[in-house]
């Protein structure tokens, strides 16, 4: 139980930088003046907890742990005795500089990501419609077969657009177009269909309508037909196409 809770929250961090930002936030410390001892301790607590819970600690977290330790020990080293420019020097050579810079850089994009998320949600509130089919109007887009100036990203982009739109459309359309087919009717259809050819038919061909209710009814109809020994279902080997044929066909083959 506890384990699950940890698991969920581990997913909440996007890496060692994210974790560090969180710790800094939690400890209410100044990002420009991080107390290394404290932050290292907290960080190691976290890593140890992950180990105790036998969670896979990604290598990035371990590298960061080593980095923190290194910075901590460098901070403990006595400073050079150069009193006249100590301030400037110690500022420039603060062993934390690089880490702080990274944290700040990362935090910038983390915030930008939050903003993008808002934009995405906002945009998700608006719905569009697909382009009309202009069949009958234009000549094809095709004449003069020059090479297409489209690439795979155009294809993926178009598909993404479709999927965004479809979120709204699909349920709408099934709701409207649903036609209740009875299992009895579907059994008759399937049996006729299967009997129509002497060769076995692929199982998947028994689901011509890509709609859940119709598919479910079709499946139940197939089960019922199998139970009544009106059709046979066979599969030559694992993962090969499941084939369906009438029992008549099978007995004929058996006899010959």
């Amino acid at each position, binding site marked *: 139980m506890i384990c699950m809770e940890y698991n969920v929250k581990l997913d909440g961090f996007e890496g060692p930088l994210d974790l560090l930002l969180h710790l800094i936030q939690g400890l209410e410390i100044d990002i420009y003046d991080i107390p290394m001892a404290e932050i290292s301790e907290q960080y190691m607590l976290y890593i140890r907890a992950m180990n105790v819970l036998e969670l896979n600690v990604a290598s990035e977290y371990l590298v960061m742990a080593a980095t923190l330790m290194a910075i901590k020990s460098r901070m403990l080293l006595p400073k050079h005795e150069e009193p006249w420019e100590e301030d400037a020097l110690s500022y420039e050579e603060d062993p934390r500089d690089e880490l702080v810079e990274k944290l700040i850089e990362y935090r910038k994009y983390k915030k930008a990501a939050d903003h993008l998320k808002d934009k995405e949600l906002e945009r998700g509130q608006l719905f569009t419609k*697909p382009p009309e089919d*202009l069949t009958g109007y234009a000549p094809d887009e095709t004449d003069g077969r020059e090479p*297409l100036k*489209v690439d*795979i990203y155009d*294809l993926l982009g178009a598909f993404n657009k479709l999927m965004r739109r479809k979120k709204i459309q699909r349920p709408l359309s099934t709701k409207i177009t649903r036609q209740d087919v009875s299992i009895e009717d579907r059994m008759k259809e399937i049996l006729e269909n299967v009997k129509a050819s002497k060769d076995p038919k692929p199982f*998947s*061909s*028994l689901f011509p309508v890509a709609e859940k209710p119709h598919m479910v009814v079709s499946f139940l109809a197939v089960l019922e037909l199998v139970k009544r020994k009106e059709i046979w279902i066979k599969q030559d080997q694992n993962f090969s196409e499941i084939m369906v044929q009438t029992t008549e066909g099978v007995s004929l083959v058996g006899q010959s």
Partner: protein
Amino acid sequence: MASHNVYAIVESLLFTSGDEGLTVEQLMDVLTLSEDEVLKIMATIREQYLQEDSRGIQLVEYAEKYQLATKAGFSDYIKQLAEAPSPATLSQASLETLAIIAYRQPVTKVAIEEIRGVKTDRPVQTLLSRGLIKELGRAEGAGRPILYGTTDEFLDSFGLNNLTELPELPESMDEDDADQGGDLFFESLKKGLE
């Protein structure tokens, strides 16, 4: 319901439902209004669209369903738009259709239209004459509809060696798709029987 203008709500609903259209019952549901009230609203909207010269769309009623359509007078402009030269690229409609065929082949036009939610005659025609798709045979079942798949020309145009090089779709999309197509058939079955 509250503060929103009922005509605006109806327009947004009509707009999103596209070719599928909306039945009186659906409108009654969403608006929580009686049939008479809905009919009255629809009559008003129809009038408004017709009356206003600055409107290019109208309310039509096919097969007991309301939908929006462009007014008749504008077909010349739409034709011009369709004819505008864009020879070297594909329209959004064609790209969508091609994507569906590439990922779902062999697939019928009805299945494509089911996914896209609109008629897809022209995109299929375009893709055929471009040599990007071809007929693979015919599906079983009523009408034995034509099955479409992509061609070598398609692979060429998109710089692919074979279909396995198509980028994998994100999982969320796969799920969406499975619902339509039946790859995850047993998933749907389970849901259906619950």
